[in-house]
């Protein structure tokens, strides 16, 4: 009879023992599995909350083409820069002269409180944009000086709803909705013509609905920021720092790429940092818990492992056996946890900032599994220190 030699251990043999041990110690493994699943549930919910908050904070900006940058007045403090910055026509003109700029468009940003005609109090972020510019919402016209286009997800606002701004009593009518959510700093966006925004910002707005004559008469050449659209393929479109700095020098502005400008929206940085820190803690806890479990598990079966070593199983075979168990456990129960998490996510109440995004969940699941296997690997490495000779002399 011919025999195949060395290290006669293949993956199937490995699974042979791993699966039987998983099913034999199913009580212990399920307990561990439930912990892994709960971690996965928490991870899905955090990821959803994180994405939800991001959307809530900057969905109005996220909808813009990725080649967009924003020029703020030089020296504006980054936090809340959108509503704090003030730039003028001269700076806009300077940017328009830059060679790589396809379109430079003014935008006014302010947050207001208002009351609807039904008596509901609403908060709105006013985005004053030039009708037809790339910053204006697609689809809905902004011709009427008293008309606003609001976020598609805004509550208490219907077509034709008239909102009255607090204190100045200016009346604005909802004439359209954006596609999907458009919020900024957790407040629904109301797009309106830049001239109307300037009228309101200058404090010259009359009570009632602004008229075309009033808007035409407004004599303000200031607004909050300049939206820049780079020529496709240019360094500026790619958000290249040098290209932006060149324009900044001329226009006396500070320009941020679209991604960077998220940080200039209220609370964005603090929220995302906090949430991602919680997520990293969760990964670390997961890896440590799995590592601790497999440490105890390996110690418990060290006599059995010594017997297997004496019988001729290589340390590599036993390592693979342990890691296979860890991988099966992690994959199965992470999948269970993600399933439960997604189910729970569907039950989230309306209005809660929660958005499940498949890529984010896939990355988070992979991290949970990989870090868990790493934790287990550190634990099962002690297998290599088990001496087969300790199999002799009774079940100590």
């Amino acid at each position, binding site marked *: *009879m*011919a*025999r*195949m*030699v*060395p*290290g*006669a*251990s*293949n993956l*199937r*043999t490995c699974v*042979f*023992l791993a699966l*039987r*041990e998983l*099913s*034999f*110690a199913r009580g212990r493994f399920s307990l561990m599995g439930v912990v892994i699943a709960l971690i996965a549930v928490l991870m899905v919910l955090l990821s959803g909350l994180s994405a939800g908050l991001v959307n809530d904070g900057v969905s109005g900006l996220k909808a813009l083409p990725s080649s967009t940058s924003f020029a703020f007045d030089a020296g504006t403090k980054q936090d809340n820069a959108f509503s704090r910055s003030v730039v003028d026509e001269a700076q806009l003109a300077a940017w328009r002269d830059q060679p790589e700029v396809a379109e430079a468009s003014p935008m006014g940003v302010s947050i207001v409180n208002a009351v609807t005609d039904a008596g509901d109090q609403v908060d709105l972020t006013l985005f004053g944009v030039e009708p037809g510019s790339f910053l204006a919402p697609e689809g809905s016209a902004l011709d009427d000086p008293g008309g606003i286009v609001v976020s598609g997800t805004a509550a208490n606002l219907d077509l034709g709803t008239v909102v009255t701004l607090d204190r100045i009593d200016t009346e604005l009518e909802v004439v359209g909705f954006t596609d999907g959510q458009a919020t900024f700093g957790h407040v629904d966006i109301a797009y309106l013509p830049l001239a109307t925004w300037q009228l309101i910002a200058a404090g010259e707005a009359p009570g009632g609905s602004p008229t075309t004559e009033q808007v035409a008469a407004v004599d303000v050449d200031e607004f909050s920021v300049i939206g820049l659209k780079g020529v496709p393929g240019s360094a500026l479109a790619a958000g290249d720092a040098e290209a932006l700095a060149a324009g900044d020098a001329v226009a006396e502005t500070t320009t941020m790429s679209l991604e960077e400008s998220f940080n200039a929206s209220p609370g964005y940085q603090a929220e995302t940092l906090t949430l991602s820190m919680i997520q990293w803690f969760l990964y670390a806890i997961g890896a440590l818990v799995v590592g601790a479990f497999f440490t105890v598990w390996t110690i418990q079966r060290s*006599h*059995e492992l010594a*017997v*297997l*070593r*004496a*019988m*001729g*199983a*290589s*340390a590599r*075979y036993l390592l693979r056996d342990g890691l296979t168990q860890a991988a099966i456990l992690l994959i199965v129960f992470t999948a269970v946890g993600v399933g439960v998490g997604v189910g729970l996510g569907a039950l989230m109440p309306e209005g809660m900032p929660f958005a499940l995004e498949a890529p984010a969940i896939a990355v988070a699941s992979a991290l949970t599994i990989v870090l868990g296997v790493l934790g287990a690997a550190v634990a099962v490495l002690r297998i290599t220190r088990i*001496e*087969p*000779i300790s*199999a*002799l*002399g*009774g*079940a100590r």
Partner: protein
Amino acid sequence: MTTTSTPKTTHDDDAVGTGLQLRDITLDVGDGAAKVRAMDSVNLEVAAGELLAVVGPSGAGKSSLLAVAGALAAPTSGDVRVLGEDLAALRKRGHGALATFRCQHLGFVFQSGNLIPALTAADQLRLAYRLAHRRGARSFDPLPLLDAVGMSHRASHRPGELSGGERQRVGIARALVNDPGLLLVDEPTAALDRKRSHEIVELLAARCHERGIAAVMVTHDHDVLTHCDRVVEMVDGHLSAASR
């Protein structure tokens, strides 16, 4: 690499199909002040098909003898040949070579069976087969061997559901799976009553005789020596022939 089931028999003087040869073995255990000479100038030969019993007080070096013969420990000096193969030469080729040699040519029977708790009796045998063979694991049938130790009716029971004697029978069957040339048996009757002890050692002797396996059995149990072909005594690391 492919080898045959019977390793090459080397040069040796005695024409007996040798299972195990120990020449001038010394084994020191521990370091410095704690150093103990566990085996001192031990010479031993066990022929194929012979069941040798090693008796002696606790701590006399009986387990060390098994460890050295079973390629689990390297002697401090001396020469170990198992089935004609020089273990020192094998050891030089790395631990993988030793492990492979162990699972293909050696059988271990441990105290109280030392079975894997998660596996049924049949799976204990299947695992032993898989450790030694890359292929053909599916076609391996553990039932004839379980039958040879009178355990085929318990094939699907786990160790927790077996009595001490039954566990030891499965342990013997597991040790025989890969047709070993040398069987190393460590206190097989330690946890058994008299009747079971006799049955187990009788079974061991019968299987060794019938399959031509050299066997070394360490035991405290003088009752069962009647079934052994030869008895040696180990005292303070020295080996001597013992009277029954």
